[in-house]
């Protein structure tokens, strides 16, 4: 295996000399302006993770840009193939680390489709409550860090104050603040505990006021207006060709939202609006997400009011663990428990692509089952991965400072991009 020959890559690396790097490699305007290639990242606070951008600049103007990714690739899709279906949920959750409820719902939805399994209504409503809380949480992290990129320090603290309330709620209902493993195949892990509803009602009473306060802070702020209004717009047609979905597409005026267009998890039961923008610039991207937070609060309120009685997870004992009290009295429950924990359930052969609306756009999970208790392939169509391709068309010909603002408004999560 080991060889003293230097690999082709190393040889290529050695062949690069400093002289070549310092050479002027192109000019525009008859040689007046020099082109400069700058490496931005991977360790740069404005890239929201370990994203590397090769930016070609003319003065301060971006001529071209190439994203280089893969720095946090951890092989989650490969790892999931080695685990039984229910044990793959925790690894799948860690892809897009700001949207763990969504990752788990997409994955469980695909497995449920392959099993032809019906999720009880209460389980669906509890999923909706947790997903929408997660959406607000994800948007809060985005808003805080994006405002930080524009120089607004206090927004960050205010956003993380509300995020903390959501994480406290997650801790109460699921036992974990992040990567909760709450969504299970067939429903959710546990019913909401006593006292959760009161705390959640306190939160949904305060959250719309908070969104209003964020607006007050940003909508009349000279710096925010100048940095975002009319900056780096991209029209609907280009966005669609690039496969961009989510708030970025809605900011350009296309009201495509899977919760409305193709409802899953009982989203058809709730009355909510899809905020859309008109210009498709950075300001619309901000406004759409702010309005989405308010709509999420509306959905949570309706789901909480109409929370149906009944089981929170399927009663099919071949899929879901039996409740604890049955283990002491029922031999059958004990056998089911043993089989599920040691081997897991088997899924009939087939393949399915299950798309849901994550905070960043269409999150699709593709699962192929080969009849065993482990998935033969798990793939996430992560919205950040696809949306990142729009960076170059959005920012060509703008200032490098606007590139930073646009990258913030794009909201890429590198854990989801690299998986």
């Amino acid at each position, binding site marked *: 295996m080991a060889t*003293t020959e230097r*690999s082709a890559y190393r040889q290529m690396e050695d062949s690069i000399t400093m002289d070549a790097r310092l050479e002027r490699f192109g000019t525009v305007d008859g040689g007046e302006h020099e082109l400069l290639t700058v490496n931005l990242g991977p360790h740069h606070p404005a890239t929201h993770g370990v994203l590397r951008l090769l930016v070609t600049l003319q003065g301060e103007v971006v001529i071209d840009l190439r994203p280089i990714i893969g720095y946090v690739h951890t092989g989650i899709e490969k790892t999931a193939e080695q685990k039984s279906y229910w044990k793959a949920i925790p690894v799948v959750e860690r892809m897009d680390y700001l949207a763990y409820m969504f990752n788990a719902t997409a994955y469980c939805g695909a497995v449920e*489709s392959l099993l032809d399994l019906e999720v009880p209504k209460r389980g669906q409503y509890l999923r909706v409550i947790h997903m929408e809380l997660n959406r607000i949480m994800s948007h809060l992290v985005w808003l805080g860090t994006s405002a930080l990129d524009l120089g607004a320090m206090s927004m960050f603290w205010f956003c993380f104050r509300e995020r903390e309330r959501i994480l406290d709620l997650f801790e109460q209902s699921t036992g974990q603040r992040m990567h909760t493993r709450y969504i299970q195949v067939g429903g959710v892990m546990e019913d909401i505990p006593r006292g959760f509803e009161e705390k959640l009602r306190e939160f949904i009473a305060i959250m719309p006021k908070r969104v209003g306060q964020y607006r007050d802070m940003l909508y009349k702020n000279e710096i925010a207006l100048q940095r975002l209004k009319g900056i780096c717009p991209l029209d609907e047609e280009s966005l669609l060709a690039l496969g961009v979905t989510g708030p970025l597409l809605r900011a350009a005026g296309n009201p495509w939202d899977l919760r409305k267009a193709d409802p899953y998890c009982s989203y058809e039961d709730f009355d909510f609006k899809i905020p859309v923008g008109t210009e498709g610039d950075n300001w619309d991207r901000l406004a759409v997400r702010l309005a989405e937070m308010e709509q999420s609060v509306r959905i949570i309120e309706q789901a909480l009011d109409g929370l149906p009685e009944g089981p929170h997870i399927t009663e099919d004992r071949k899929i879901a663990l039996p409740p604890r009290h049955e283990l002491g009295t029922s031999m059958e429950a004990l056998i089911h428990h043993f089989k599920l924990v040691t081997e897991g359930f088997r899924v009939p052969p*087939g393949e399915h692509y299950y798309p849901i609306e994550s905070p960043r756009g269409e999150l699709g999970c593709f699962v192929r089952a080969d009849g065993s208790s482990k998935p033969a392939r798990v793939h996430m169509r992560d919205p950040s991965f696809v949306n990142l391709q729009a960076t170059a068309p959005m920012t060509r010909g703008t200032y490098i400072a606007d590139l930073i603002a646009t990258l913030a408004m794009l909201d890429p999560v590198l854990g989801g991009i690299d998986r």
Partner: protein
Amino acid sequence: MPDATGLELLAGELRDADADAVLDTVHAHGKGQIVIAPEKIGWALQQLRGKGFKSLMSVHGVDYYPEEPRLGVHYELLDMSKVDRLTVKLRVPVDAPNVPSVTNEWPTANHQEREVYDMFGVVFDGHPDLRRILMPEDYEGFPQRRDFPIGGEPVLFTADEALGKDYTLGIDRDPNGEDAL
């Protein structure tokens, strides 16, 4: 989602236009799949675009080991006005994993085809920039293939190279140029 009849009608229209293009249709769990001959993929996607499937949402690879032909590429199409989805898939063998690229017609496929190449080794002919995207540039092998072992991954430390060790394996390099293992 097209029902079983709608899927057959769609496949029938494609067959009428080109008799060899459609290899199979599958309808399962409320979703339709059309299996297309690999060399016809660009044509088939354009035909379906004309029938309303204007968005390509996802391109992903699958390894069907031990079935042959092993490698599969899935194209998830979406019709936003009718809210209809359709999966177009193709299969290629490992020893000739060539598929025409659709990046020129569908810009969204650019990064996704690169990922399929990176993970499965499917070569997309005509792709403008077919390089590895997630794995390091000098990585050998295609990690998402089913016969690619998990674990035992050599860790790359350039510090090992400075110490005279093979930087991929961290073992002492033989000064005479002989294989150290």
